[in-house]
């Protein structure tokens, strides 16, 4: 991904966000990281980006189980927000859930490039960021 593109993390686990940021730093990735504790907060800010003609993130790492607005609801809402955007933002599900039900549901969203189970290995993180 380009150096000026933002990495967006949507997860209610603050420690996980800290660890991802630390991993990115360890990998020498200096892209700006924006993080949100639920889908609703993320959606609100991404909408502002769009309204202010600011560039949307280059990648979204999305959790499923979150308060207020979960990952699935975020995806539905974000699809509406991003429908006019010609640039398709790659979205990865990063969750502690290993339920088949969640895995199968992720397949119904074409925006989702992959479903990753926590903890995400550094190699995996590097791979998805170097697309």
């Amino acid at each position, binding site marked *: 991904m380009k150096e000026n593109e933002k990495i967006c993390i949507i997860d209610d686990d603050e*420690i996980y966000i800290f*660890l991802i940021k630390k991993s990115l730093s360890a990998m020498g990735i200096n892209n700006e990281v924006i993080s949100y504790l*639920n889908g609703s907060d993320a959606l609100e800010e991404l909408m502002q980006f769009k309204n202010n003609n600011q560039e949307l993130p280059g990648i979204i790492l999305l959790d499923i189980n979150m*308060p*207020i607005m979960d990952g699935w609801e975020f995806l539905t809402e974000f699809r509406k927000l991003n429908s006019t955007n010609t640039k398709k933002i790659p979205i990865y599900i990063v969750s502690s859930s290993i339920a088949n039900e969640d895995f199968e549901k992720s397949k119904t969203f074409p925006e989702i490039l992959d479903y990753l189970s926590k903890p995400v290995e550094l190699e995996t993180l590097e791979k998805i960021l170097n697309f």
Partner: protein
Amino acid sequence: MKSLHLNKQYSSDDDLFQNKSDLQLKLDQQIPICLDDLSNETDFSIQNHEQLLHSILNFLPVPLIITRQKNGQIVMISQGVENILQIKKAAIIGKNIDEIIADKTEFSKILLLLDAKGKIQNEEICIRNVHGVNISCLVSIETFISNGECFYINAFTNISEKKLLEDAIQNSEDNLRTVFENTEVGYILFDQFQYIVSYNRPASLFAIKEFNKEIHIGTNFSTYFPEIMREYLTNIIAPVLKGKITSFERFIIHNGEHHWYYVKFSPVFNKDYLVAGFIMSMENITDRKKNEIELNKSLNLVTEQNKRLLNFSYIVSHNLRSHASNMISILNFLEKEKSENEKAGLLIHLKKVSQLLNETLYNLNEVVSIQKNLNTTLERLNLFDYINQAISVLNKEINSKNVLVNNQVPNDITINYNPAYLESILLNFLSNSIKYASPERLPIINFNTIQKNNAIELFISDNGIGIDISKYHDRLFGMYKTFHGNKDARGIGLFITKNQIDAMGGKVEVFSEVNVGTTFKITFS
């Protein structure tokens, strides 16, 4: 007319026909059969008439016995008698007819009738053969006079085979009737015009339960139902009259008792395969139905428990994995980290993760203990008192937010419940209502109850900020699910509460409207 020598006793054919070749010759000459026409014949012819009679009797397959009226003595018999009684002519001629009659009393009655009428037609009588076997016959008797003496011509028709067949049919019918009457299933046979042809005892009992009236042969099907049901019944019967089987289950309350019946209408076809009527069968399936209901209850319970277990395993897996994965990542960094400051920072995070893990394990343990405590002794608890107790515990929060709490539950309502669970449930719902009170109005929380059958429904209503049920209904009672962004919300209260209510065999429902309020309905079974 020249009379036959009936007064003479013949002991054998040889006595009757001294010259058999003569007889053969006479038969070959085609002698006229009609005896009346013989009156003008010559002596030769008259002589032949007697021989002719003997000839006829000799080959006549119909059992015919000529007896004297005065003493019943047998003077002549046909070949048919020899056949039916399996006796030689010589052995029977001269005997009394009573000797071959099985039921002498019956025969005496027939003779009395003969005296009165002059002749008898097809009266049933039983004769006995030489081996003592009874043979059912129809007897017709004519009288005639010869030489001033009265004789009887007794003509028999063997009906023993027909009688055996009739007896077999009767036996079969009796057997069927026994089965029909003693079966548990009620049967009513209708003709094609829906009139009752036959019914059995269970059907009669069913009719009393279902229609509150006795059933009678010859009455129409529709007369047993109120006017309002007749169209419905016509629709049921229509396909049956077209040859189709119809069935349904029917629930009846009779004398306060609940009865289930399996009712079936089956067409009855005639030999041309046309519907000649139908059979209505009604089987009491109350026991089967009760078992089915119990089985369904157990199945629902097991399904519900299984669902809860799956949900629990999902929660355990998700929450433990979440902490475990953070620990792994932190430890990986710690291994590689050289800076002491960074290491200290990572350790702080590790400590936090271990605290969260501990908290999760505690909460999961709470859920496990709910399932484990299912058999704890239940107590009769006064709902009104327990609500007041919860209000008292949360008095500080109620006062600080100026909440008006109305306990409108009658003070005599009691429920069989686990005291700790009831306390926890009431505290949880009350604290939720206080926590999510609307800042725009004076918070009001009401407690009400409705008694429904054997259950008590408790309504806890507030005028708080409400929740979008269409969005969050599926997740409302999930673990670690929060919806309002409230910093104090841990997403565990409703989860634990629902588990406690479920474990006690009750249920919880929620009705809410954003910015209007929320009502939780708890059913205590």
